[in-house]
């Protein structure tokens, strides 16, 4: 598996080259949000706003209303917590095409509770007019900007920085409201987002080796979530469904799926993996993923619950995820 570095930094410069209406707004976290290369390449399109996120968000709404495409770069917590009223009233209400790029989702930072956005999907998904995207690998970090730009209203992107694996072929971009079907089977359905997909791939390979049929969907659009493959995957498994997200287990992917199940009248078990009504703390990603049950081992525990027998893997048995061969778009539709 290829691991890429500072994918957004380079991609943003490349992507914005022929888009003169794109502006980048930053609140003193320009390098931390990989916007420094953009700033250096297009200084006249970089707008420094200082540590003042509330003003930055409303200011961006003013720019967007006048035909510019402001890309607000800061940590997700500051968009979703510090400036929530501004996001709701200045941006979402007006359906202003402000693109909010939130970094450090969930436990991807050792910065502790103040820096860890564990509630951002819940907060953003609640807002009328808002679209919520979460890339899960380098290919999606590269392609999310096109999807984001094509949406005529506000978009929240739960962005990844630093070292990002490439799980999906570079020529298979993220598409709006199009889950990726990573495997198919009749016993269990696994739904994963963001950094959890890499972990889920390891666990699913192990389960398949144990003879279980597993349908695995990777979702990079959390709102809207209307693709028929989601309902099909919820309906299909004999034993139940598992969701896995780098977020509270309420308000995010697990809730999206539970709502879809209820709407469709599906009586299935759904084990929702995520932070369980708790804040996290400072620590390494691997440590926090183990502690909060966001790793492959946690998915195996959830599967054990549904299957009714122990499914324990030794660390060596959980093979490192590799680039997965995807089913074609036609197969996605057919599921």
């Amino acid at each position: 598996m290829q691991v890429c570095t500072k994918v957004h930094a380079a991609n943003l410069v490349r992507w914005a080259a022929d888009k003169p209406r794109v502006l980048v707004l930053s609140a003193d976290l320009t390098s931390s949000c990989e916007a420094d290369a953009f700033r250096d390449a297009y200084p006249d399109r970089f707008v420094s706003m200082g540590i003042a996120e509330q003003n930055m968000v409303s200011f961006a709404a003013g720019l967007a209303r006048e035909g510019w495409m402001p890309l607000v770069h800061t940590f997700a917590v500051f968009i979703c917590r510090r400036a929530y009223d501004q996001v709701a009233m200045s941006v979402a209400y007006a359906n202003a095409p402000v693109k909010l790029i939130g970094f450090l989702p969930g436990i991807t930072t050792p910065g502790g509770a103040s820096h860890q956005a564990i509630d951002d999907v819940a907060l953003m998904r609640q807002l009328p007019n808002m679209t919520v995207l979460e890339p899960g690998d380098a290919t999606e970090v590269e392609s999310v900007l096109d999807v984001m730009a094509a949406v005529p209203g506000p978009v929240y992107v739960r962005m990844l920085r630093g070292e990002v694996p490439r799980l999906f072929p570079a020529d298979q971009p993220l598409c709006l409201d199009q889950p990726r079907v990573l495997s198919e089977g009749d016993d269990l359905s696994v739904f994963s987002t963001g950094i959890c997909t890499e972990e889920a791939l390891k666990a699913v390979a192990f389960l398949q080796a144990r003879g279980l049929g597993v349908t695995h969907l990777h979702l990079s659009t959390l709102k809207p979530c209307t693709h028929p493959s989601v309902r099909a995957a919820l309906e299909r498994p004999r034993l139940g469904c598992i969701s896995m997200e780098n977020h509270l287990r309420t308000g995010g992917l697990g809730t999206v799926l539970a709502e879809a199940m209820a709407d469709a009248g599906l009586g299935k078990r759904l084990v929702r993996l995520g932070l369980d009504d708790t804040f996290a703390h400072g620590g390494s990603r691997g440590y926090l993923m183990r502690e909060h049950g966001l790793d492959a081992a946690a998915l195996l525990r959830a599967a054990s619950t549904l299957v009714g027998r122990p499914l324990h893997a030794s660390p060596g048995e959980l093979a490192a995820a590799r680039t997965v061969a995807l089913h074609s778009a036609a197969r996605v539709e057919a599921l």
Partner: protein
Amino acid sequence: MGPPRPERAVTDLSWVADVEFAAAHIRRRVLAHTLAHGGGYMSQACSAAELLATLYLHVLQLPPVGLPILPQPFAGVPGRGNRAYRTGAYFNGTPGPQHDRFFLSPAHYALVVYATLVECGRMDPAGLEQFNLDGSSVEMIGAEHSPGMEVMAGSLGQAVSVAAGVAMARRRRGDRGRAVVMLSDGEFQIGQTWEALQAMAFHRLDNMLVYADCNGQQCDGAIDRVMRIEPLRARLEAFGCRVAQVDAHDAKALAAPATWRPDGRPLVVLAQSDPCRGLEPLRANAPKLHYLRLQSDAERARYRAALEAMRHGEGP
């Protein structure tokens, strides 16, 4: 900046008399409305009548309004599916690059703006009768779709930031028109207001003009008793603003700073106002002036008498 409107005969200061005439009628309309409905944002009309009349009749460079000028029913909130949606800036005309844009930040001044629109011929007087009715766009707390409004400002402190974004966008586009914001002085208690001023100064948005109605009042009572904002002028200057301090009831004084040649600094006009101006009975309600609720027959009689006096041009 700020010459008389083109359709007006250019005769020295005739516009001042027009502003004074309009301001008296704004107070009268808001008082009549308050009496008819048992309550209203009365002190805001008393403090800001000349300010809004000066803006609309003299300072703001606005194109004519289209037809109809009767507010249309609420057409839904903005969203991808709503093609019927339009903002209340319709009543300010369709702006070209040379035109100003007006942003009302304290959205509870809406009734005063509606009365101003009527006085300057931009809204049908029948529109006032739709105030606060179900299904009407003429809302009590002005929304984006309410006459004269362009942005959602009910959560105080946001409109100046949005207007600053508009000002930067317009400057990048080469527009000559300004972003003109009306603030209330209570909004200087809000952190975002200072974030916005700091950014306006840093980015040298001298195509912005901020008028603050400094009536010294807020919801809980006198500002000095709720949370002090003084020394306001010094604070604004320390933030890099250019400040004018004027009598809010003097049209010429209000209009003068709008003609100053831009010098890189955002311009803030502190309009020192009397929250009971032109309505003496209101003084008995101090320090609770934010919203006038008519409670007794005696009170209603006093205000009715004041309205009658206004109608007969005797002054209250």
